[in-house]
Each structure stands twice: as C-alpha cells, then as structure tokens.
C-alpha cells in the first residue's frame, strides 16, 4: 500500500484561510468521479480477488451450517464445556462479535451527532459490518442452549402455562438489548442507503433498476425529501447513540451481575463498551484497508481516516488497559480471597496465564505504537496492529469467561476447559459468514455513502466560491 501522504492537496480551500487541514477527499475529485467510482464497484464485474475471497468464505459458512446441524442433533456435548466451565467459545464468540458490532453505530450515530465529517467515507461499510457482526453474534447464544428447539421460551409469548420470562436475568436483557440494537441499526443503515439506492436506480438497467428502485422508496432528491430525510437521520442517530453504550453494558451484565469471582465487578460496563469500540474500530480498519486498495478508493478513505481511527484505537485501548490494571488493583485492595485468587491465578499461577498475557500484549502494549505519527501513517503497520487488537479482544473475552469459571469457589471442583473441533469450526465458520455477507454487501450495495461524501467536498460548502475568489485575489496581490 502506498504512502497516502503523497496526494496533492495544494488546492484545498482552507489553505486560503491559513488553516492547514487535511482534506477528506483527495486530488480534488469531482462529484461525478465519486459517483462513478463508488457505483462502479457495484455495476462492474468484481475483481478476481473478490471470488478468491468469496468462495472460501462460502465454504467456511457451510462449515458453520454443518456444525450447527451437528450441534443441535447431537447435543452441546460436541463442544468442550464441562462442570464447572459451562460457557466457552460460544459466549466468547458472542461477546467478540457483539463488540465488533459497536464501531458501526458509533461512527454513524455518535460521530454524526458530534459533526465529525470524516465519518462519511467509512460509515456505510462499518454499519454493514455492524449488522453482519451482530448476526454472527446472534448465532452463538441462540444455538448454545441445550434445547435449541425451545429457544422461543425466551420470547414473551403468552402461553397456557402462564410462565413468563425471568426479567431479572441478564440473559433476557441481552435478548432485548441485542435485538433492539439490531433493529435500530438496520433501520439506520437502510435510511442512510436510500439516496444511494436511488442513484443506482438512476444509473441501472433492467432488473437491477427495478430492484434498486423498489428499495429506494421513490427517492427523487427533492428539497422536501432531503429536509425530512436529514431530520429522520438525525433522530435515528440520537436513538442509536444510547444503544452504543447500552448493548455492551448489558452484555457485560451477564458477567457483572453474577457471583463468579472474575466476573463480579462493577467496572465491566464502561470497560466492555471501551473494549467494544476498540475492537470494532480494529475490525473496521481490517476491512477498509484492503478495500480501499482493491477498489481504488484511496482518495476517499485517506490517511486522515486511518489516522483518526488509529487514535481512537489508541484511546480505547488505553482505557481497556486501565481497566485491566484497575481490576487487578481492586482485587488486591478488596482483600476478598476468591476475587484475589481469581486474579492471582489469571496473572500468575493459573492454567490460563498465557491467555492473559496474550490479551494484555495485544490490547494494551501493541496499540501504544499509535502514539507515533509514522505508525499511524504506515498502512502495513496499522494493519498489523489492528489485527493484534482483533486477536487480543477475542482473548480478552476468553480470559474473562472460561478462565474465571475454571477457578471458582470450591477447589474440589476446579476444572479445565479447551475447545473441541466443533467449536473451532464454528468460530471459523462465523468468520466465513461474516466475510461472505460482507462480500455480498460489497457486490450489491455502495460501500461508501455517495451522497454523504459529496456533502463533505469543498464544493458543497456554500462559501466555497467565496474562498476560491479570495484565494485568487491573494495570488494576484502576491504577484
């Protein structure tokens, strides 16, 4: 990947003001170019590499389907859980994917409300990633139960037995939190897609035109439509914002409200949310870096975007590191033997210390290189570090979930957990599903929000022409 700083930025209007601000779209790209480039991805044949990625993803996805059939038909015994470790990779993967699903909404909602214009180039893809990640996440708790065919007991359906759900259970909160998050995210994503679907409709032919037209809901781009659209988008952003914080907080309650040493800590909600954003951004970068290269989107997804996201990773990674250390301190300071032992064994004498140090290195130490400008701007470096983070965030959940259970209150019942091949295949399969759906998304939908990117071009600024004139005047005066 090339060094993004070589792009020509000389004609950026803000220069006229004397403020050097990196432009969000490089090389003075025109509106037409942007439409052509983004819609072109959908309209043209996919590069060969798309197939190279897609076919294995589908195969992996089929592995997931096979694993699920095997799991349901045979029993949870095909996984590696036992007494006392009744949750293993299933819940680890659930929390992992849910965590990844956080960046999308954060970018689309919170950065929207805070007027962070750089979000426009990455929000569409991250939202899609969010939805797909939540789908991947949903599989695990859905299928991890002993009797899958009775999962509907989780839904508050009136029934003749007059048994209701237990509203005290964090698992039930999870069901509501995750489904709410998914529904709102889908709506938010879809609303954002409407103007671009209309663009594709206008450019398309035949069946594609009809389909895009159907989903564009009659968008004409009129002033009134834009007016309503902007308002709807703002409201949805406001609705989504608390969800970013609530979903992972609720997920963390699965652990925090329990009595298990290593789970039972009040620090979990903020720590999980920070971790989720951390992991989510890492996954966004993992996806966006190759995409911008493959589809020639360097002018839209620029070094500035990467730099910003790297900074967020650095910030959230440091918060996570603080949380790790605070957990240790509290366990020492509280003088609770069970709690103390849980962390003692996590970091010193337990069977899973390797996992702890894996996690600590990947999540806390590795991102620290992002303090350096060169590291944030060396795309290979960024790519490597974000993958450390992906890896580390999975390990974080692993360290929290099975290792706490394996060493709980009564040493007479301590055990050890290791995943079975089915669990490993399922995890790989969930990646297959993730990539498969993401590649399908790339194939059929604009991966960058065309209309929104256009909105952050210098030309769309009402004062653009004033600045342009001013600059020319100065140049003239200089002569």
């Amino acid at each position, binding site marked *: 990947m090339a060094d993004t700083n070589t792009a020509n930025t000389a004609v950026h209007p803000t220069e006229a003001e004397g403020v050097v601000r990196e432009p969000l779209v490089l090389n003075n790209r025109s509106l037409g170019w942007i439409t052509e480039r983004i819609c072109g991805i959908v309209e043209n044949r996919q590069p060969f590499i798309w197939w190279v990625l897609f076919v294995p993803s589908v195969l992996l996805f089929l592995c997931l389907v096979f694993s699920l059939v*095997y799991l349901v*038909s*045979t*029993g*949870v*015994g*095909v996984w590696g*859980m*036992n*007494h*006392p*470790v*009744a*949750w293993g990779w299933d819940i680890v993967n659930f929390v992992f994917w849910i965590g990844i699903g956080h960046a999308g909404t954060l970018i689309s909602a919170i950065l929207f409300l805070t007027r962070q214009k750089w979000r426009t180039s990455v929000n569409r893809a991250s939202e899609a990633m969010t939805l797909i990640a939540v789908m991947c996440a949903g599989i695990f*708790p859905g299928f*991890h*139960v*002993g*009797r899958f065919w*009775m*999962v509907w*007991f*989780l839904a508050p359906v*009136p*029934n*003749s037995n*007059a*048994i*209701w*759900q*237990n509203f*005290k*259970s*964090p*698992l*039930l909160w999870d*069901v509501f939190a995750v489904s709410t998050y998914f529904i709102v995210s889908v709506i938010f994503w879809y609303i954002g897609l409407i103007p671009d679907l209309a663009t594709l409709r206008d450019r398309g032919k035949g069946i594609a035109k009809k389909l895009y037209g159907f989903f564009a809901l009659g968008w004409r781009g009129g002033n009134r439509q834009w007016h309503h659209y902007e308002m709807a988008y703002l409201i949805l952003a406001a609705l989504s914002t608390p969800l970013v914080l609530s979903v992972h907080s609720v997920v963390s309650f*699965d652990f925090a*409200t*329990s*009595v*298990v040493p290593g789970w039972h800590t009040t620090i979990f909600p903020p720590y999980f949310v920070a971790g989720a954003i951390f992991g989510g951004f890492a996954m966004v970068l993992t996806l966006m870096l190759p995409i911008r290269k493959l589809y020639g989107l360097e002018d839209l997804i620029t070094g500035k975007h990467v730099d910003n996201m790297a900074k967020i990773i650095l910030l959230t990674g440091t918060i996570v590191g603080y949380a790790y250390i605070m957990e240790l301190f509290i366990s020492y300071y509280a003088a*609770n*033997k*069970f709690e*103390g*032992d849980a962390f*003692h064994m996590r970091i010193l*004498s337990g*069977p899973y210390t390797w996992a702890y140090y894996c996690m600590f290195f990947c999540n806390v130490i590795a991102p620290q290189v992002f303090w350096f400008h060169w590291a944030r701007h060396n795309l290979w470096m960024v790519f490597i570090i974000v993958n450390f983070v992906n890896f580390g965030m999975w390990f974080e959940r692993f360290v929290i979930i099975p290792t706490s*259970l394996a060493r*709980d*209150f*009564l*040493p*007479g*019942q*301590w*055990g*050890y957990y290791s995943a079975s091949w089915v669990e490993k295949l399922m995890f790989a399969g969930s990646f297959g599903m993730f990539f498969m759906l993401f590649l399908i998304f790339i194939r059929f939908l604009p991966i960058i929000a065309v209309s929104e990117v256009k909105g952050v071009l210098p030309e769309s600024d009402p004062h653009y022409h004033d600045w342009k004139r001013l600059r020319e005047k100065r140049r003239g005066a200089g002569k």
Partner: protein
Amino acid sequence: MKRKWHHPAEEEASRIHWRSLGELEGSGEFKGWLEREFPQGAQELEFDETSRRSFVKLMGASTALAGFGVSCSRPLEHLVPFNDHVEWIVPGKFLYYSTAKPRLGGLGCDPLVVTTFEGRPTKVDGNRLHPGVNGGSTAFTQASILDLYDQDRSKGYLKKSAETTRADFEESFLLPFRESKSGAKVGMLISDSTSPTRRVLLDEVVKAYPGMRLFSYEALSPVGARAAETDLYGATALPVVNLSGATRILSLDCDFLGNEPVGEDSLTEYSATRNPDREGGPSRLYSVESAFTLTGGQADHRYRIAASQVLPVAAMLAKEVGAALGDAALVSLADAVVSRLVPVVFKQDWIRECAVDLVAQKGTSVILLGGRQPKAAHVLVAALNRALGAYGPLISLVDHKLASYEGISALSSAVEAGEIETLFVLNEGDVAYDAPSNLAVATKLAKLKNLVQLGYRSNETTKLSTWHIPGAHFLESWGDHYSLSGVYSVQQPMINPLWGGVSEGRFLLSLLQEDASGNALLDRVKKTFAAIGGIDWSLALRDGYAREGKLAAGAFSGDPGAQAEALSKAPLADFPHANGLEVTLTSSSAVYDGRFANNGWMQEAPDPITKLTWDNAALMSFSSAAELGLEDGDLVELTVGDRRVKAPVLRSPGQADFVVSLALGYYGDLATATVSKGVGFNAYPLLTTAQPYFVTSALVRKIGTKYPLALTAEHYSMEGRAIAREGTVDMLKEEPDFAQYQGMDSHIPENVSLYEGPDYMGNQENATPLISPIPGHEFRVDPNHQWAMTVDLNTCIGCNACVIACQSENNIPIVGKEQVINGREMHWIRMDRYFTSPKDKEIISQRGGALDYLTGAESTKDTPGRRTIDDDQVEMISQPVACQQCESAPCETVCPVNATVHTGDGLNAMTYNRCIGTRYCANNCPYTARRFNYYDYNKRPLDQLELGPLAPASGAATTTQRLLKNPNVTVRMRGVIEKCTYCVQRINAAKIGAKTAARDSADIQVKANSFTVACQDACGAGAITFGNLKAEGDKILAVKKNPRNYDLLKYIGTRPRTSYLARIKNPNPKMPGAEMVGTVTSKMH
C-alpha cells in the same frame, strides 16, 4: 380360589387421581376454579375492559385447558394394568421388603430393605430394624441393584461357550451325574458363607456324592486373620468387634470404615464414638497404613509405613504395652520380632505415645489389624488386645459353626494331580482370573473333563467352562445368613430370575433331588428356620431377621502367648526403596475384587481418596514419584521376578515412600462386557500364594507413554479457603462456635442490600408477598414446611454410599470415562476431598494467599517435588456437596426462562420441561452443584455419544436397565440442567400422605422425622440430617443449633439451606506433630 379385584372406593379413587393439592384437599378454591369456564382471568373478562392482549391470552389458555382441566363428563375409570400381584399392592406406591445380602468376602450379611415398584426392585437400603445396624449401607450395597439389571448378565446355558438349553444340560450332564451317585474325582469351589441352609445342603451333597471335595476361595478373603483365628478360637468361631464403647482405636492397616468392616456395623459404631458431646469425650483413632484409606482419613494420628512393616510396628507397640502393663509374656512375644529389628528406622516416639495412650484407656482401647496381614501379626495383635482387655467389652467371639474347606492351593494341586476331573465352580469370584498367579489355575482348569460354572456374570472362568449355568442375583433367590454377630437373617427374592438364573441353593438342590424350584429351596430355608428354633416365619420375613436362634459365643481355645515360635519365624521384609518397591494389592473401592467390574455406577464412583474413576492406578507418594522420575499418567510396568503388570502412575498424598498401591479387580483388555471392556489394568498377576497382599522387591519401569486418567477432582488443596472446616476438642471447649468464624466468615461485611427476600421462617411480621403479574400466582411461603439439611463432617468419612444412593434414587446416568475426563460427571451429590498439611498452613500464614502446593493435572509441567507436601502430617477431609438449596439462590436470578425457581417450602426447584439449557445457572452456582446433560446419556450408548442421532438407539440391551428406574423421578433428556432436589419426590409423597391423613382438618404438616431422603438413608455414619425447620421436634432443629454448624461459602450471601458441621479432631497432645492436627482451617482468614 379366584381372587376378585375390588375397585377402590370412590373417595379413594379421587385421591389417587388428583390434579393438584387443591383437588386433594377438596378446597373451595379449587372447586370454584373447576366451575368457571375460563378459570384464569374470567373476572377480568367480565368486569374489566377487555384488551386485545388479554383476549388472545385467554383464548389460548382456554383452548389449552379445554383439553384437561374443565371437561366435566369424563367417566370414572380404574386402570388395572398389573394383573398378577399381591393383594396389598396400591398402584403407584412402593412396596418394601426386607432381605439380606451376603457380605463381600462371604462372612456375615448386610440386612437390607428393598424398594419394589409393581414387582420390580428399584432400590436397596439398609434394614433399620435389624439389631446391631442403623440402616446405613455401602456404595457396593447400593450399586448391587444395578447388577440385577446388568445388560451383560449371563442369560442362558452355555456349553463350551456355545448357547444351549437347560434341558440339554440336564440330560447330558446333570442326570447322568445324579445317577452316578459318586463324588470320586469331583470337586466343588464355593465362597465362604455363614448361610445355615447352604451348610445343610452342602453336607447333604457331600453325603450323596461320597468322595466329593469342597474348596473355598475368594481373592480378598482375610487369609492371615482366618489362619490365626483357627489357632486361637478354633475354626468355627469369628471375632466380632463392637466399637461402640471404644475410646482408643488403633488401626493397623485395617480399613474398617471402608472395605474391611470388623463388626456388624463398624461405621455406625465408630461414628457414635466420635461425637464431641459423648460422655468422656470422643474416641481417638490412630492409624498405621501404607496408603490413605477412609480409615486413615479419619485418624487423629496417622503413621504412613509400608504394609510389610506393620508387623514390626505392632511388635514394638506390643513391647511398650507389655512393659507398661508388666505383661512379661507379651514382651517376650514381641521380642521375638523386635529383637530382629533396627528400631531407629521407626517412629519410636509415635509408637511409644500411642502405646501409653492405649494402656491408659485399658478396657476401652482396641487394636484392629488388616485381615490379609500375615498370621503372625494377627497372633500378636490378639495377644495385645487380650492384654488391653479388649476381648469382652469390645471384641466378642461368635461361634458361627463355620465349616473348613480346602483352599485354592489344594484345588490347584488336586487338579494338576488328576484327582479332580469334574469341578463345580459356584464361588462369587472368577477363579480363572483372580487365583494366585503362581498356581496357574487357568491352564489347569482348561484340562478338566467337566468344569461346571454357576455364575450370573460371564467371566474368564466361563471361557474355560464346559457348562455354564446362568446364576441368579441375590435379589432373585431364597436364602438365609447369619449376620456377623450371629443373628439369623432371611434372604427373600424380590423378583423372579430375570433370565432364568439359578441360585446357588437351587443348584445344590438340583444335585440332590428332582425338584429344585424356588419353592423347594424356600422349604429348605423354612426347615432351617424351624431347626434354629424360629417361631414366626412371617415375622422373620417381614423384619428380615429372626428373634430366635442367635448364635452362641465362642471362646479362646488357643493361647496367643504360646505362639512365640510363629512370631520368631515370621519373615520380616526390608523397608522398600527405589530398587525394591513394595506393591500393596488392595481391594478396589469401585469393583472390590472384580465382581463389580461391569457395574457402571461403581466404575464411575470416584475413588474416595484419589478421585479416580474408570481405572485403577499405581499410587505412589510425591517424593517417590519424583525420585523415580515419574509423573501422573505415566504408564509403567511393575515387575516382580517374572511377573509383570502395567499400570498408570498416580501420585497420592500420604502414601508411604516407595510403596505402590494397586487395586485388584480390573479386567483391562480381558473383559468383553459393555462397561468393563478395556477398563483399568489387571493386577492379579502379582498376587501369589506366598505374597497374597503385599509384594516386595518390585521394580518399576517407565514405558514412555501417557495414559489418560479420569479424575473428578484434580486439586488437593483448599487453596487457603476454609471450606471443609475442622478444629480440635480443645478448640471446641474454648470457643464452641469457632467454625462459624473460620476463613472469610471472620470478616463478613454487613449486608446493606436494599432487597429483602421472602422471609421463609416467618420471623418478620407482615413481610410483603412477592408480586406476580398473574393474580393468584404470588409467591407464598409454606408456613408448615421448610426443608433443610446438615452434613456432619465429623462423622462423614467420604465413602460414596450417598453418591450411589442418590444415583439409584434419582435415575442419574453414568457418562463414561471420556466424559469424566471432560468433567461432565452427573452425580447430584459429590464427594469433594481435600488434603491439608502443616506445610500448607505455614505457607498460607506466611503469604496470606492461596498456594497450589500440590500440582493438579494441568500443571504437571511443574517439576514434581517443587511444591512438596509433608506426607507425614497430611490429613484428609471429605465433604459431600450437593445443591445447597439457597434461599437467595444465584441460579434462580439468572435463568432467563424461569426454569429454576423457589418453592414455598424452601426448595430450589428445577423445571426440566421449562429449561432450555443456557447453563447460566451452572456458571453462577458457587457450589458447582448443577449438572448439565451434555449428551443423551440416558438414551445413547456411551461409546457412541458423538454420533448423535446416527448412534443406534439403545435397544434390548438396556431394556432391563429401564426396569431399574425410579418411576417417581423424571428421566432427564439432554440439554437440560439437573441437580439435587432434596428428593422432592419423597417430600411430596410425604406431603400428600399428610394431606390425605388430615382430611378436612388443617393439620397438614408432615410429621417430624417421618421420612428420609436417599443420601441420608444410605449414610451409615448418620452424617446427613434432613428435616423440616417448621416441625417441632424435628432432628434438624437441634443439629442446626449445634455451634459447629456453618454455611458453606457464607460470604457470598446465598443463605444455603444445607449447612455443615465442622469436624472435630481429638489429638493426643503428646504425639509428635499433635499441635498441627485439625488446625489448618482455623488459620485461614
């Protein structure tokens, strides 16, 4: 006369088919409910504005209810499916019969009560009525019912391993044999037994076939003891120890609390002596043994030493005792051994102080010696006991009029010499497998003209037999036994032989006469009953024993003092060392001598000490293993001369150095039966007539491969947490409630929760009832019943009887070795076992933290010996843990679907139908009491669990096992959580009983102490108390008030209903290391 089935009276019928307790009571509320067309919410429909939501709900509910609740014209029917039955049977109710089972080893019997349901026995328990026992049972007894339904039981006649018919056997063999009327070259191998009827039959057989020779053999029979007893009391009498009055007990390699009871009910008697409130204080137990046993685990002072060194220790002790008592004869007897010893290698101060203590309590002190120790040792210990005055108050002699039979060596040489051509094998063991290896019995038996085996399992001997006759289980046969103390006990069958099996008695009858039916045998038993002076046969049958015909006392006929010669000639072994290990061949806690090898419950019951399942292992001490370069799971070959066995190494605390303990009875590759196939390693090749118990000069060689061991607990230490608490007699005196303030309980912060749970005990007035969204479904505390349990760690020895009893009562499946390795065993009550040692304590007090001083399985990468343990001071404590039925249960709050909820009577109930299996409750249970059915363990073959629906559905093989199930307990499917229910089926049966009896009165409270739960029933030590906190006079109330009572993990605030009573040790302050005994948990905080 034709019997007519009388329909039960109308009133009673409605009591049988009740839909709810409300109907049973005939309460107005229920009647009103029946009358309303839309029972729930009918009011709302009438008076309130109907919402769409409630309309849909009501329609759904009423459609569903239309099916069962509100139909009014269902004709009253009586189902009479069970046509041929005894008159007093009540469909749906259990019947209880008394019977007796020959004790393992053959001498004496275990009196039993068997639960039967519609003609099939489902559970075995001890007989409380029988004199001398308290109704407890052992794990073996509990598991014996499974053998009845064993799918691999011998099911038909075999001729040279080919199937044949009974007619063929009778025609080709039995009739010609009976006509020959000659016993020339005929032998019969039997087990030892105290059955008078069998004795009569055998006498008649020998008379009918002159020249027939009788042999007896059991691999684990106490040969040394019997030899000495023959000399001392004559061949017909047996010593019976009653520990009730003992104040000092020294066990010399005698596991009298485990597989080697020395009296009618040693466990019960011993447990009673351990009561700290006992007059004169609790008894004190000294133990000298090579490997931890259940007895050693209870000992106040334990001396680990090789089994071969027990005779020297006894001799040194005898010398001290003799000197103290001024008994010159005893001293000279002891000197015959001591003069040949190097005393400094022994713990002389230990022996001396022990002797002083025994002498000080002369008259109430007793020494017990392991039955298989050599004769010389038995002679010496008899002299010691005599000097200490134990005979009389503690040891009585009972003249069992035992017959003497020839032994296995005689059989072997007779067969070899051609003196025997036809051999009947009737004994319980498997002679081709368990005979001493130097006799090569199997090869000799193969040469016999006729080998006729009667047995209910097909084994190694079956493979050699010319004729195999399917044997009957003890629950299928008539018989009688004298109990060890000489009470005539009746063995009555519970069921017709399932596979046409023949009992030993019927087989002997068939040699004598044409009619060998069960009734013919019953006649013989009745005849014996009359002969012993029995009066009321029905009464004896009901009670399980006869009040008459108690055996007479025996008397010393030989003088132990005159046996000095035997002692001076007794061989003395060297201390074992790295190049001359000692192998102790022990009886297995799971399979005994091999007879339980195909019993899945026993195979999966964790060994009480090592927690090993599905295998035996070469146990050795940590330091010996380190010196020999061995680790857990290393497969080794043990060689003695040219005999060798393979076994995996398992390190075990408290083991004597360079002593390898290896349990007998595992078939390994020999076995072909479903359960025992490939399980364990056969140790019998090391058993010889010369060294039937401990084998010296053994060598160990590492094979280089690892063998997976299925341990249910890999951790030895409490990790500095005061879990199984203990103290000493002195601590109890100073501060009776010390146990309540051990560990973190010494600094529990004040509970500042805003939530007040329901007040079960009704101590707070006007406690607000919990609100329910459905009217009429508010949580109501039952004012009459609040169940609770206590476990007294002071008497619990960790023997597994409760574990198996629970398995039997609650239809708990076994899961197989692979699944145990995965940590998925299903036992609802489990036996946690911890080792404590002063080293642990020191380190904990220094560092104030947890220390894994013994490596668990996953940390074997640590160098062995790095974390060492003081094997001389190590103590063992067992703690049974089941669901604690917390009032504030962490499992209940986390279940998303309300599958686990609290009941008004204080149970933490589990609704299997509602459970979807999120396993969150299992995670959140601090006691790890919840079990998840990971595969369909009840349905699928254990070796094909992974095949899921592709695995063959269990067919005919397990149909018999289905007969075993308790009909009152759901057989759980896969994917649901299960756990201890406090035997809710028994609770509800009692409640229904109380309600039925109460009729219209309000007195519906179950009578105090009127029923028991399964684990409580089985506990011979009486460690488990269960009862109703609301019933006046219930035993539980007193026990809960005991100052030793503490809650497990109280710190978490779960308010468990099950609590524990701390163990009290009674150390002798003068013994070396006495200050360490029983103090470990008191130093934890």
